[in-house]
């Protein structure tokens, strides 16, 4: 991620140099650029006018960093330390100063000749204004990572404080020595462009040395870890935590003393009584109950609820309903509510009075099933005789009955059928 940012920054610088991005002079960093302000116009003319051709991005970036470094070095007339190293850059700068149009070949040749180590050794105390502006643009354009996941990374960029540098005029030689001491240890595996970009970024911050050292350390880390592992930062944390052992509170037998030993009270006057093992049992009980520990996910939580909902109100539900009724005290406040309650219970008829209150289903039965009941007589009833006569009377009586349902009438007829079938022998004896 940081590498990408650095590359983006360099690309932006490249674009700035090309004049593709138009930055205004007013966009200055806060306080540390007083010296840069002086050289602002000069840089602008230089930066805008240099044409860049078909050189590869790598070379251009190299050139960018080198030129920025060179410009920085050049614009600090009070700097005397890097004369030996600046000479090479100084030559470039003089050439830049001479003519705005510089051939690409010269630039690339100069880049190739320049040793890689110099990029790291050269210590930029203040970046040029364009570099800083571009950096700020980049920082502004950077998307803020809004995650709650805490990453184990030290803050890359310490906060930019408003106060000015406490030591703007450090001794150059001391800084040079620090730089060489640090960089000599770290320059083995890092890509020079990234290192240059890191140093450029660090120069904008108050603690240059710290920032640069941190940046370079981060660079090393990034170089070491492949890309795939970088995305699994959260998992790394999880792995680390899982590897850690849970430290148990060693409190179990803290009060273990021989029972025969006499234990005095607080003031030393009386004796404490035997407490038994209640203290240890309390310690045992204070452990986590099975309901607070981690869920094992052995059983499916929602599978059982479906079957239960279909059974209907259980006894517990009825009991709960009773309790709610008792608790809420739903006694009627007036006569109207009392009548409502009775109507619900069925003690009171529903008004307006409906004569067929309990016979709603009978309304859909057609009338011919009530009246024409001879079809039931045709089965298992004799066609002639007293029985038939009797049954016809029964049927006419049922047909005229308004208060019976069809089902009741059919039950009547069925009962008679069974009865006469049982009494068949009696009927035959009577006939005979």
């Amino acid at each position: 991620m940081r590498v990408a940012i650095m590359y983006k920054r360099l690309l932006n610088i490249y674009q700035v140099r090309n004049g593709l991005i138009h930055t205004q002079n007013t966009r200055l960093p806060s306080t540390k650029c007083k010296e840069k302000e002086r050289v602002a116009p000069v840089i602008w003319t230089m930066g805008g006018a240099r044409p860049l051709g078909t050189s590869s991005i790598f070379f251009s970036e190299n050139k960018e960093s080198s030129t920025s470094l060179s410009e920085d070095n050049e614009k600090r007339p009070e700097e005397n330390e890097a004369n030996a190293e600046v000479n090479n850059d100084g030559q470039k700068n003089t050439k830049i100063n001479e003519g705005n149009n510089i051939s690409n070949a010269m630039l690339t040749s100069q880049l190739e000749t320049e040793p890689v180590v110099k990029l790291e050794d050269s210590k930029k105390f203040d970046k040029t204004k364009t570099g800083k502006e571009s950096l700020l643009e980049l920082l502004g354009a950077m998307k803020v990572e809004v995650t709650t996941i805490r990453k184990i990374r030290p803050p890359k960029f310490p906060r930019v404080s408003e106060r000015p540098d406490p030591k703007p005029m450090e001794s150059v030689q001391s800084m040079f020595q620090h730089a060489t001491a640090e960089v000599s240890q770290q320059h083995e595996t890092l890509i020079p462009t990234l290192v240059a970009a890191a140093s450029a970024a660090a120069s904008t911050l108050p603690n240059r040395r710290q920032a640069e050292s941190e940046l370079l350390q981060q660079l090393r880390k990034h170089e070491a870890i492949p890309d795939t592992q970088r995305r699994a930062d959260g998992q790394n944390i999880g792995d680390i935590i899982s590897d850690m052992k849970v430290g148990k509170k060693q409190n179990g037998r803290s009060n273990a003393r021989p029972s025969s030993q006499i234990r005095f009270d607080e003031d030393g006057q009386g004796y404490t009584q035997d407490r038994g093992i209640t203290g240890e049992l309390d310690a045992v009980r204070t452990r986590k109950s099975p309901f607070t520990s981690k869920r094992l996910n052995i059983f499916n939580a929602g599978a059982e609820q479906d079957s239960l909902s279909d059974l209907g109100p259980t006894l517990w539900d009825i009991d709960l309903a009773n309790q709610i009724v008792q608790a809420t005290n739903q006694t009627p406040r007036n006569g109207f509510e009392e009548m409502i309650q009775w109507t619900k219970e069925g003690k009171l008829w529903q008004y307006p009075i409906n004569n067929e209150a309990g016979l709603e289903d009978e309304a859909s039965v057609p009338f011919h099933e009530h009246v024409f009941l001879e079809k039931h007589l045709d089965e298992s009833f004799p066609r002639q005789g007293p029985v038939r006569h009797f049954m016809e009377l029964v049927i006419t009586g049922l047909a005229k009955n308004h208060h019976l349902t069809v089902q009741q009438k059919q039950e009547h007829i069925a009962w008679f059928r069974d009865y006469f079938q049982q009494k068949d022998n009696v009927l035959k004896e009577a006939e005979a």
Partner: protein
Amino acid sequence: MAAAWKLLGTGMGFLQSSLPAYRSSLGVVEQVRSYYVDWRMVRDVKRRQMAFEYADTRLRINAIRKNTILPKELQEIADKEIAALPRDSCPVRIRNRCVMTSRPRGVKRRWRLSRIVFRHLADHNQMSGIQRSMW
């Protein structure tokens, strides 16, 4: 829990709605009648229930008995059958007692109350539309 709420909604939760010392809106404490007044009333209730059970059977057998078309042998058999039914199934044994006091006599059928209870309630203005008559 949802089923409990459903029960409340349907009104099935009024299993113990009649609390003791129920205060009506009129300020009169009504009697709480969770028992029948006496054993005679209990027996009367049993007879009524049994009469309701056997009503259809009795009706059918009586229709065969009270008949001039069917042969008499059949009617005699029907007589014996109806006599074999339990004695409490016949509606004749039901006595319209007073609902409040179980008094067997002096009961007005419309209000199911004995004369004494009726008079008591009417004097205290508990009977709707009842007024002391004078002419």
